[in-house]
């Protein structure tokens, strides 16, 4: 170009373009996106009209927003979610019941919510349970891969039948194909609220669990600590309780 002014103008444009490009590269190099995987488990996490909803989803969405960390939700089978969280960096699975057996396999942010698990029977059932061992020989329905099923089996329960969704458990209970249903209080309320089936009664509370976010061990500790700190702040300011109290 023979025109010096034109040359300068062109140079400015080139420099601006190069600057923007380098900024984009820098930004994408530093910004890791957490993949937050869950299996459909209403009312905790589920898909509704192409959006993800649920008590745990709401709490985690707020948590990441406060922590200013990028994330994307993905719905996939539970076993796959846990496997990805174990082996792929910046992957997490939820809600996972934190337990000693898997403590070392992940970094944890906890509690995303707390569940109380009970044994339920039909309203007209005559079953009486005063301790967990009383239920050992009963036919129990539970959710596949759920911590409740594993807990009961670890105490010698041999008649635990696991299904992929809670509607099946309700149906089986009403058809008397199972005698009791092992689940948490929130799920029990959610699935029986508008159900066509008979009402149920709570027979015995048997444990509590900390529903948690299980994250890959390679994620820098500073980010895990940030998430935990912000979760603690949400609990302190009352927003956690509002998000995790189920109302259906």
């Amino acid at each position, binding site marked *: 170009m023979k025109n010096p002014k034109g040359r300068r103008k062109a140079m400015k444009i080139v420099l601006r373009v190069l600057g923007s490009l380098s900024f984009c590269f820098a930004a994408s190099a530093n910004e890791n996106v957490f993949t937050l995987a869950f299996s459909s488990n209403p009312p905790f996490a589920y898909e509704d009209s192409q959006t993800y909803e649920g008590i745990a989803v709401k709490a985690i969405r707020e948590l990441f927003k406060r922590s200013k960390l990028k994330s994307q939700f993905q719905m996939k089978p539970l076993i796959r979610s846990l496997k990805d969280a174990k082996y792929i960096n910046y992957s997490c699975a939820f809600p996972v019941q*934190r*337990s*000693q*057996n898997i*403590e*070392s396999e992940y970094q944890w942010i*906890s*509690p995303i919510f*707390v569940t109380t698990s009970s044994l339920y029977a039909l309203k007209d059932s005559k079953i009486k349970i*005063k*301790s*967990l*061992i009383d239920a050992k020989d009963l036919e129990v329905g539970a959710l596949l891969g759920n911590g409740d099923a594993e*807990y009961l089996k670890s105490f010698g329960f041999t008649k635990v039948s696991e299904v992929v969704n809670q509607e099946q458990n309700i149906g089986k209970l009403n058809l008397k194909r199972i005698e009791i249903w092992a689940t948490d209080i929130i799920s029990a309320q959610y699935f029986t609220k508008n159900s066509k089936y008979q009402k149920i009664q709570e027979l*015995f*509370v*048997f*444990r*509590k669990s*900390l529903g948690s976010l299980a994250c890959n061990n390679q994620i820098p500790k500073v980010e895990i600590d940030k998430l935990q700190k912000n979760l*603690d702040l949400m*609990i*302190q300011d009352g927003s956690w309780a509002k998000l995790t109290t189920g109302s259906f």
Partner: protein
Amino acid sequence: MKLHSFLKYLAFIELIFFDLHAYSQQESENTMFKLAKEFSPTTLSQEQQRAEFEWFKNASKPFKGKKIIVVSELIDTHAYESNVIAKLFSELTGIEVTHEITGEDDVVKKIEAQVRTGIHLYDAYISDSDLIGWHYRSGKIHNLTDFMVTNGKSVTLPTLDIDDFVGKSFTTAPDGKLYQLPDQQFANLYWYRKDWFDRLDFQAKFKNIYGYKLDVPKNWSAYEDIAEFFTVHVENIDGKKVYGHMDYGKKNPSLGWRFSDAWFSMAGAGDKGLPGGKPIDDWGIRVEGCNPVGASVERGGDMNGAAAAYSINKFIEWLNKYAPPEAKQMDFNTSGTVAGNGHIAQQIFWYTAFTAALSKPGLPVTNADGTPRWRVAPSPRGAYWKAGMKLGYQDVGSWTLVKGTPTENLKAAWLYAQFTVSKSVSLKKTLIGLTPIRESDINSKAMTEAAPKLGGLIEFYRSPARKLWTPTYTNVPDYPHMAPLWWKNIGAAVRGETTVQNALDIMASQTDEVMANLQAKGMTKCPPILNPKKPLSFWYAKKTAPFPKLSNEKPKGETQSYENSIEGSW
């Protein structure tokens, strides 16, 4: 006529009332009978036991119908509480109890979450007294000394008899207050096959190879020689492969307490002093006054000192050379009863919580008459150990009440807690789970009768030497956040991902970091006040731990007879 009808009506009501009352009385008598039958034997007379049951019934009246939930770890004693004691308590009092049992690390995580967040999870915990340092510093745990004479006065059993608890000193903080009430205790002792050790052919062969008698090892050198002897030189007994050592190495929270349960002090790390070394305890944390001042040797601690490194090196060496290969993938729960399969000659680190499981008739380790072929004996000491140090670990699972628990729930839970450890219940519970907590139970006729089938457990608890087996004590200011550092770091060394010294250096540094954070945030009592880093020569000059590396970490092996080991050490 109207009066006549009214009188008939009145008589009818009186009859119903009388019947109901009589029925209720009969029900109450049935319950009392059931309790007396289940909780027999007891050190109390029948009248005294009945009086305690009546006290619980009356004290619980305001809480009838209340539901409470408590949590403990999974051992036989707590299974008995959950399945039997809780039900009978409910029947007596009308308080409905869920006694959840779960992994020990789960209990720690849950009490930490409740204390940190204030979320009401459980009404009471059976938390190890290892957490006493955190409990009394956090300000979030009720001190029972004050509770029992103030808010808890109306629900505190007059015959609780705190002085009868042998673990009382472990749950009492430096401020002199009782923070936890012991529910069960078990020690970590040396376990061995006395029948194999007594065989003349093995005696001759061992003497020929090692130059001294095959017997209860006094030191780690002898333990190592015996481990090698059975794994390498004996190899098979009655056609079965045998091993001279058993342990566990799975990457799991329980790997942490494999070491933090006094393994360092068994090796000889830290200082003399009971229940914990002074100024440095078995975690390697130095305390000045009541303030933790450092874990790393640069700050005057001993967590990454020579004795600690020796202890981990020996753990790894023995696990790899002398234990069954599958031991590397086992944890606390899966490894505890392996010795009962009949192929293990000795185990240096064996929790007596598994005594009941290894005393069952018909096992390869039990004689036809029910007596064990094995014994428990004092733990052999490592090369750095000196007289005056603690010799091993004792677990004291203890009732712990978290502040912020709704008052009515707290009181109901306190009633249940006391019931589980009352003299009415404790002896039967001890005979089931073999985790004694009361002096009166330990010295009872029932325990004397049980002793021959328990391999030396009762003799241990009756001896003054049991005071040398102590829990983690008050030097550790935040057990829940410090405990994971053990399995994460030492686990890496066990798997060969790093050297032992590097693992310990990182662990000590991270522990100091946790303490620095506590110092910055503050604690209600005795917070950490970290020492500045100084050269090792500065700390060596003080003539307390940390001590330099020994030129010979394998002195000659020494053994003693089982009888001497009992008389000498306990």
